[in-house]
């Protein structure tokens, strides 16, 4: 704030937000859906960070996850299939003061939106991307997605999926300018919250792949991991997530991983069992597109008008005297 008095006035009028302030309507996701846990974690974060409602924008594409903006009492943009990221980039470019969350699914991001995804990583614009990965197209009732496991029987692959699934973590870590990559699972809310919070504070493109259950179409997909906590490996580090004593009693499979280590992050990303959970990579030094391309000064309407008049005058043919 330029005027010191503004800070004082804002502090005086500071009103605490409750989690209900960020809620809008009743989610229409299926009961038991992992999307609920992600929504709750984001709402908790907004409350804890005291983010003004009008300073948040949630952007989504198409899919179950893309109903996310409807359930946030903030600005939202339910855009086209696969186009959440370019819309979010436009918002961030024009309004860098807004906090941008992108909710996208495995189909929305890794299939039709794959080109935007790759370039969004490269642009490294400051936004928090939540990739809800239930490994199935749920909204259209069970078609195979790019992350579906090999052999998965679906309405489009009745004999089983033919291809190995795409690994979003490895793909993201392979793109230049990558700056933040994490993996979470919806069934460990404490870690999910921590990861989203750290992604939010990271200045750059924060990509979180969140493995989530689809109780309707793939109810047993993650059952082995739910039943056996040792099949989840928590990545802990002073610069990553901190595993609480309570959590450590359940999840004993821990690995100390420095998020600055890109090579090790790539190794970890390639492992699917046990599921690595935590911050794989973080580099705050990567330049951000919105900063690189930010104008060196602000143009007021009067300045724009004066500039245009000046340019136009160059081509004006003045009548002869």
């Amino acid at each position, binding site marked *: *704030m*330029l*005027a*010191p*008095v*503004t800070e004082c*006035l*804002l502090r*005086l*009028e500071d009103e605490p937000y*409750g*989690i209900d302030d960020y809620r809008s309507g009743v*989610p229409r996701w299926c*009961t*038991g*859906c*992992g999307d*609920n*846990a992600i*929504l*709750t974690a984001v*709402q*908790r974060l907004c409350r804890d960070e005291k983010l*003004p409602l*009008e300073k948040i924008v949630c952007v989504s594409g198409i899919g179950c996850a893309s109903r996310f903006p409807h359930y946030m009492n903030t600005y939202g943009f339910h855009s086209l299939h696969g186009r959440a990221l370019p819309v979010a980039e436009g918002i961030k470019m024009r309004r860098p003061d807004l906090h941008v969350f992108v909710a996208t699914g495995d189909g929305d991001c890794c299939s039709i939106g794959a080109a935007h995804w790759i370039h969004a990583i490269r642009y490294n614009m400051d936004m928090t991307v939540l990739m809800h990965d239930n490994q199935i197209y749920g909204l259209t009732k069970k078609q195979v997605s790019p992350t579906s496991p090999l052999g998965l029987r679906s309405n489009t692959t009745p004999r089983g999926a033919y291809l190995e699934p795409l690994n979003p973590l490895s793909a993201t870590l392979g793109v230049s300018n990558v700056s933040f990559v994490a993996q979470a699972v*919806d*069934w*460990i*809310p*404490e870690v999910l919250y921590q990861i989203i919070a750290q992604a939010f504070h990271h200045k750059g493109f924060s990509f979180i792949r969140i493995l989530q*259950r689809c*109780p309707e179409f793939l109810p047993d997909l993650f059952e082995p991991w*739910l039943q056996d906590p040792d099949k989840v490996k928590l990545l802990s580090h002073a610069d990553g997530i901190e595993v*609480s*004593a*309570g959590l450590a*009693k*359940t999840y004993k499979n821990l690995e100390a991983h420095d998020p600055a280590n890109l090579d090790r992050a790539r190794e970890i990303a390639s492992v699917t069992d046990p599921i690595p959970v935590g911050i794989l990579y973080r580099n705050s030094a990567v330049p951000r597109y919105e900063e690189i391309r930010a104008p060196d*000064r*602000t*143009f*007021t*309407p*009067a*300045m724009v008008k*004066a500039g245009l008049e000046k340019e136009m005058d160059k081509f004006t043919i003045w009548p002869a005297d």
Partner: protein
Amino acid sequence: MRSHIESTGAGAAKTKPAKPKPARRASGANHENKPDDVKADAMELAPSAATETGSGADAAAGPALRPALLAGYRNLAALRHDFPLLLVAGEGGEGGDGWVRSLSGMIDGILQDIAPQGAEGEALRRQLLGLEREVRALVSRGAGGSLSELWTRAAKQLRGVGDADASSVADNLARARNALRLDGAVIDCDAESPAKLFSHAWTTMQRAKTRAVLDEINELVLGLSDILKADFMRSDAARAPAALKGAVGTSYEAEFDFDALSRLLTDASPRDALPEPRRRRIGAALSVLQAQRFFAPAVAGEDNGEGLYSFAFESCEKAREALQDRLPAMVALIKAIAIAELEIENRYKAATHDAFFESFDENTLTPEGWALFPTYLICLRDAALDAAETATLIELLSSSLPMKIMLQSDDILAGPALGPGSLALGTPSTRLANMAVGLGGAYVLQASGASLYRLRHRIRSGLEYAGPALFSLFSGAGPTTPGLRPYLAAAAAEQSRAFPVFSYNPAAGRDWASRFSVADNPQAAAAWPVQHLAYEDENHQRLSEDVAFTVLDFVACDRRYGEYFSAVPRSEWHARMVPAVESLTGEAGGAPEATPYLLMIDESDALQRVVVDHRLLQAARRCGETWHSLQELGGIDNSHAKRLLESERELWEQEKAREIEALRGQAAPAPPEPAVEQALPAAVAEAPAPEVAAAEAEEAPPSDDPYIETARCTTCNECTDLNNRMFAYDDNMQAYIADPDAGTYRQLVEAAEACQVAILHPGKPRNPDEPNLADLIERAADFE
């Protein structure tokens, strides 16, 4: 003389071989060998000696003689030193101390960048150093202009002389020129340089600050304009057919039915216009922001700058009047900025903020608010400082206003005309800096013109300081030291403690040790700086001695004080003659028979002994005491610290003595006390870490009651959908059992079975009459 002058011979006065007359043979420091037949002492020598040697002004201490330590600096233009300086133009000068550069430093930098190591780069080094010498000579002869212009002139002269290959010179200088990335005005050390340098520093810093603030203001203008524009776009006027037609343009206007479009938009869009008071408030703030006159546009040419306030003054009174006149506009601008920020953040609350802003006036301005605006630069000459101006100056320094006052003195001795029997060195204006330090809240820097480059960081600190600042400077360009160039005179004043360097920065900390410093003086820990003087005797034998440079040496350069000095012919030197510094420091000062003298040189660099009048000695002692006071304030030889140290040492020695006595008196050692670990109960010693204890406390389940591991709940709605009175969400939207009696044991068991993460534990049945309990208890066993 100063460490920042680089030259062969500098600091080592090399006198010519002694000539037969007058007494020029230097005798070195061996006083025992000196002749003892000088009859007159200092008290009675001055008038008679002046008669003997001609006029006192010209013969004794005028242009004819100068302190021996200045022997190496006759041709200053041939010596590499700080000056000339480049006042870096444009944004290259912004940030840190890059606003000013030394020519020598820049040439060194270029050589480091482009000159190959060894013999290969020798020609380039020689030619570029030659160019530097030419530029320095041009500037010393009064040539002005930018570095690029002076470079061109110097290069032309270099190409025209010597036997060097002209094309090689041109090529090398062209390469060097390409490596020269900065430009700006070049200044020498003269009467005008302090004002030029300060104006440049201040302008550079204000430019960066203005750009930043103006950009913020433009952001606010844009934000407010956006709000008004959005409001307009929702208005009937914006949806009128004519407005829509204008928005589409002429190319495709035939394709549209603007009446129909207008009707559609008017009917379909929500009507939520800005409340009128808010629109007025935003409009008013916008007007103030757009009409402000404090900050010039960031890019020249966007505005002709008419109507902008000026912040550079030559009088304290005028600066104060200007500030008073502008105060209402400052308040209005701060208010508009605050309102704009609140409006853009959507945080303006009329119920509370209206009253606050109505009573907002200059008394509400905080130091942070003042800091937004440009500071005021006032360049003063002490000659124009009358009583009224001095009073205003002190008033400004006592305030917290951002006044940056540069007070330049060209003459710090002002002649010996004082009352009978008394002689005081220094003019009233030169004491202002000492007084300003006592005010406590003003930044103060006293320095000579020769040190401006070396002290550029202190100049920057003073200009950046939020409150008032006084820069008291001695230019060295007075008319009474015609034999010395201003740089040398200024440096001599600083060296001799006649005008010592000190700085006081209230922002540097809360104590004197942090705020006050005399460390920028040469040999700050010494009473007088001592330099090594080497010379030859009449037999061409090399001699040397350490010579102090005292305030007497500086005064001896001033022709007005000629009658207080007298050269003594060598034939009259005697054993009671002692270096004047000994008399000043008290080592021999108490001996009435001692005759203090200075070592000086004449125009042919022959050494002379010059005796000093006792009145001047007394004045010099007072000057030394003033310097000692500054040293104490700066933590050097501080008497309070010494006393404290002494008393602490005494206490320590007494304590140690007692301990020794006690040890001697001990007949046998006392039995050892039990170790702390042994005294502790085992349970305490083995207590787990708090974190683990907390975790264990958390996990302790109630015996038969149902419970949920709330922290692991994923908000999946399974249980709340089953019974939202029995199960509820907490503040984190995670489930807990709100009322175990609000449902059946069956619902508890079914909820546990439905829970995706198996964190619901049904416990034992609370109603023994519930049907099918046995089956339910068996199903619940999986979740215990």
